């Protein structure tokens, strides 16, 4: 592949525009960025519209645009689980998170671990929440880089050797610099540009590409019929039905527990803003559904047998399906727009994720265990430095370690993050849980979830659970969080009673 000069120029120009916006953002809604809640939460002043762009940019990442259609391209109907997943996240957002926002606002909490620390008065539980958040987010940042790398190579930049990594390294230095200066204001502002580019790209794609391929009937006709629907249950196994539904439910429950979603939610200016967004973000889900269909369009366009794209597919596998489809269908300048949309779509979540990790580290490890009396300015400075380290870590991770590991770790990350459901969500609605019971539940869920993934060699998160001779293949995250919940429910009254007896005997 030689460098596509037109596309690359448009790409670089748009990238430059966004980088400039990132730095300008420091002066947007001017405030003292040496306060952590200003740098790391945008001063909690984002209204409905900005929150819509920020959460949209946060949740629908570059990796989504690449990986969801790639999954549909490779696995067919099963890959479409992303759609029921995005349908389910909004009722959860509506019911749960305005409440968390309110408590966090009243007490000045910046992270979920801050909230857990105060709610249960337990340092170990807050530590577990903070560490789980950081560890689950790191591979997620790395995957954003993978998404960016795919489009950079598709533009025709060299893919191998040291020069192959140079564009990615430059992009990340820019990202690190504007995140350091502007904090959460940068991704919030950039998300607006990113969304416009994405919407233009997707609407062009669903109009232009089907017209070229002979309409939707031709597209669906080119897909092998067995891929078009889920395999029905056979014998004593529920087959892909239970897998499809548990993937959707488990992913939906996990999503808002990720630190970067939490950061997006806590930066809203009121609970009402969050509830409005629970309705308005569905527009994004619809676009995601259309993006998923790009996988089938790639099959219909036979990009995999086109010698032009053989090198790309050899290097990136199914993740190359969408870039190849765009190269095949759009004129060069519009390829530049589309690829810029994807690459900028990586910058926004990567910035928010690194800010979220930095907030967690600073508030719940540094301030909690090393420097309890640090000043606000010291706290903010620490967070800025950590946000840099997190990004360096992600770049090293992607360059030094085989990509398959990043994907496997992200899969494990979903299983680990969902274990925060009992302490974070249940704590909002009931006081009936004991902190030690929640901690034991967390440990049990994390252990069993990891074991389930290990039995599948860490390549799949679908665990064939057997109950009374019926096999229920399902998402390990959902199964393991049920174990977590059972432990927490069963042990809470027991440990509460033990604690009371301990207090009683201690005072005697």
């Amino acid at each position, binding site marked *: 592949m030689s460098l596509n000069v037109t596309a690359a120029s448009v790409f670089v120009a748009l990238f430059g525009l966004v980088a400039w916006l990132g730095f300008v953002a420091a002066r947007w809604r001017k405030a003292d960025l040496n306060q952590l809640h200003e740098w790391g939460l945008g001063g909690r002043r984002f209204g409905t519209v900005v929150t819509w762009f920020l959460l949209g940019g946060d949740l629908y990442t570059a990796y989504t645009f690449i990986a969801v259609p790639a999954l549909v391209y490779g696995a067919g109907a099963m890959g479409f689980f992303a*759609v029921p997943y995005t*349908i389910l996240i909004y*009722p959860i957002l509506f019911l749960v998170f305005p*409440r968390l926002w309110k408590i966090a*606002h009243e007490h000045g909490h910046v992270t979920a671990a801050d909230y857990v620390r105060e709610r249960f008065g337990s340092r170990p539980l807050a530590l577990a929440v903070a560490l789980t958040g950081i560890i689950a987010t790191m591979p997620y940042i790395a995957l954003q880089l993978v998404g960016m790398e795919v489009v950079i190579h598709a533009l025709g930049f060299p893919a191998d050797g040291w020069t192959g990594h140079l564009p990615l390294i430059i992009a990340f230095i820019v990202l690190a610099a504007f995140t350091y200066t502007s904090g959460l204001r940068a991704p919030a502002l950039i998300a607006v540009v990113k969304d416009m580019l994405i919407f233009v790209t997707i609407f062009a794609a669903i109009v232009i590409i089907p017209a070229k391929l002979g309409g939707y009937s031709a597209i669906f006709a080119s897909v092998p019929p067995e891929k078009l629907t*889920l395999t029905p249950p056979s014998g004593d196994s529920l087959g892909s*039905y239970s897998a499809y*539904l548990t993937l959707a439910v488990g992913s939906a429950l996990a999503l808002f527990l990720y630190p970067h979603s939490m950061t997006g939610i806590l930066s809203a200016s009121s609970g*009402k803003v969050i509830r409005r967004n*629970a309705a308005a973000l569905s527009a994004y889900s619809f676009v995601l559904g259309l993006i998923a269909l790009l996988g089938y369009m790639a099959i219909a366009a036979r990009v995999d047998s086109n010698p032009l794209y053989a090198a790309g597919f050899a290097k990136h596998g199914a993740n190359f399906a969408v870039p190849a489809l765009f190269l095949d269908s759009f004129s060069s300048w519009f390829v530049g727009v589309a690829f810029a949309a994807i690459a900028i779509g990586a910058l926004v979540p990567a910035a928010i994720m690194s800010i979220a990790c930095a907030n967690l580290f600073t508030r719940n490890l540094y301030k909690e265990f090393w420097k309890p009396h640090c000043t606000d300015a010291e706290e903010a400075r620490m967070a800025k430095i950590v946000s840099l380290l997190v990004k360096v870590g992600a770049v090293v991770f992607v360059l030094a370690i085989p990509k398959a590991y990043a994907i496997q770790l992200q899969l494990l990350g979903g299983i680990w993050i969902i274990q925060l459901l009992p302490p974070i969500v249940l704590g909002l609605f009931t006081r009936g849980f004991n902190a030690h019971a929640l901690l034991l539940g967390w440990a049990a869920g994390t252990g069993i979830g990891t074991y389930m993934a290990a039995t599948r060699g860490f390549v799949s998160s679908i665990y064939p659970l057997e109950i009374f001779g019926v096999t229920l293949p399902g998402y390990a995250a959902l199964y393991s969080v049920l174990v977590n919940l059972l432990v927490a429910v069963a042990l809470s009254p027991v440990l509460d009673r033990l604690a009371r007896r301990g207090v009683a005997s201690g005072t005697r």
Partner: protein
Amino acid sequence: MTGKHMKRSLARYWPRFLLVIPFLLVACVPFYNRIEPTLADIPFFYWYQLAAILLGATVAITVYLLEEWITPTTEQGSSDPDSDIDVSGTPGDIL
């Protein structure tokens, strides 16, 4: 939670039970796992789920509006757990 408090919550938050509808729409996998009837050549499996997104959004908007409509009639002030504090420096909380 006292009975009186419960009753007041129910009067105010009953629309939230409607949020079970999106879940029911996606839970019936065997129902929508089929090709026919197609819509504009798109198999049922796909257009049903895309339509479910729109239905889910409609439900969320309905719940939001119903709550907005109920709130002023049942109670005022800061005693309720989900009331909002607007600290936005910009007009309202739109931007």
